[in-house]
């Protein structure tokens, strides 16, 4: 079998599992990353304190690509500001654009996200926008210079699964960039389903952070994502619906 790489902005990855690092303790991160087999981990940017609190960067294993998000941004301009501060921390050009000004459902604002994507792509960032799966918005993101598109399966943290399945499928079919399902994935089976559909990768955080055994759940997701990817590449078999065949065949009129 030929090599199957996830390519984002000229960077190649073997793993198709993007792991979030929120909502669980730092000393579990290393084990979670290793069990997940993840090569990309997301981070957020916050004001720091001067005490001796441990820093997350000290807990992330070597060689992992950091994907800072712009959480907290309510407008494109704020997202750009956060992204630039993140880059100043010297951890690469990747950024997951996240613009939210809805505190109840935490749904992304596609319009502001497109604007932020355009500004950041021009600044040389590898931009991975988190978005509501709308085909027109996705096309605008492509034109704005995105390197991958990250549609949500369900609201952040809801663990509800692929509520937007049909619309994500449209993005997979129509958009030439990697489609990475982000947010809402609650179970390994849902991650597997997203991969079977042809998603390029899955991002998960809450599902793992809220599991009884965090590293074990990270491992379960890894296997589910790999299984889904393999199934997609293998080509899903389907039973042809026979039904009743037409009483008068459509091709009876033909002459050779």
């Amino acid at each position: 079998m030929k090599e199957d790489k996830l390519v984002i902005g000229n960077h190649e990855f073997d793993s198709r599992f993007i792991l979030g690092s929120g909502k669980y303790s730092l000393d579990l991160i290393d084990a979670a990353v290793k069990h997940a087999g993840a090569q990309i981990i997301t981070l957020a940017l916050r004001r720091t304190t001067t005490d001796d609190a441990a820093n997350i960067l000290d807990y992330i294993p070597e060689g992992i690509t950091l994907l800072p998000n712009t959480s907290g941004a309510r407008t494109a301009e704020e997202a750009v500001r956060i992204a630039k501060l993140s880059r100043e921390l010297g951890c690469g050009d990747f950024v997951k654009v996240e613009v939210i000004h809805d505190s109840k459902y935490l749904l992304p604002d596609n319009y502001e996200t497109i604007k932020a994507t355009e500004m950041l792509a021009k600044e040389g960032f590898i931009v991975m926008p988190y978005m509501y799966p709308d085909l027109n918005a996705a096309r605008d993101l492509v034109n704005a210079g995105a390197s991958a598109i990250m549609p949500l399966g369900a609201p952040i943290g809801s663990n509800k699964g692929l509520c937007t399945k049909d619309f994500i499928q449209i993005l997979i079919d129509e958009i030439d960039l990697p489609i990475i399902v982000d947010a809402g994935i609650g179970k390994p089976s849902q991650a597997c389903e997203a991969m079977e559909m042809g998603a390029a990768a899955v991002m998960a955080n809450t599902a793992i952070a809220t599991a009884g055994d965090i590293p074990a759940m990270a491992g379960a997701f890894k296997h589910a994502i790999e299984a889904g990817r393999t199934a997609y590449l293998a080509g899903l078999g389907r039973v042809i619906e026979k039904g009743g065949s037409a009483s008068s065949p459509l091709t009876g009129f033909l002459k050779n």
Partner: protein
Amino acid sequence: MTVNGEAKKLSGDSVVLADFLVQEGYKQGRIAVEHNGRIVPKGEYGQVVLSDSDTLEVVTFVGGG
């Protein structure tokens, strides 16, 4: 001076940013600094002179999804 939203008194005139960060105990390799809305490249920490009317944001990575 305002640092991360909190008032802070400078120890004297012409305090340089680099010294201020050391005094305050920030982990130099783990932060990014915005001075009056402008991101300060690490190489310029020694040249930025702080005054009491300044606003400083000092940020770092935390867990996030």
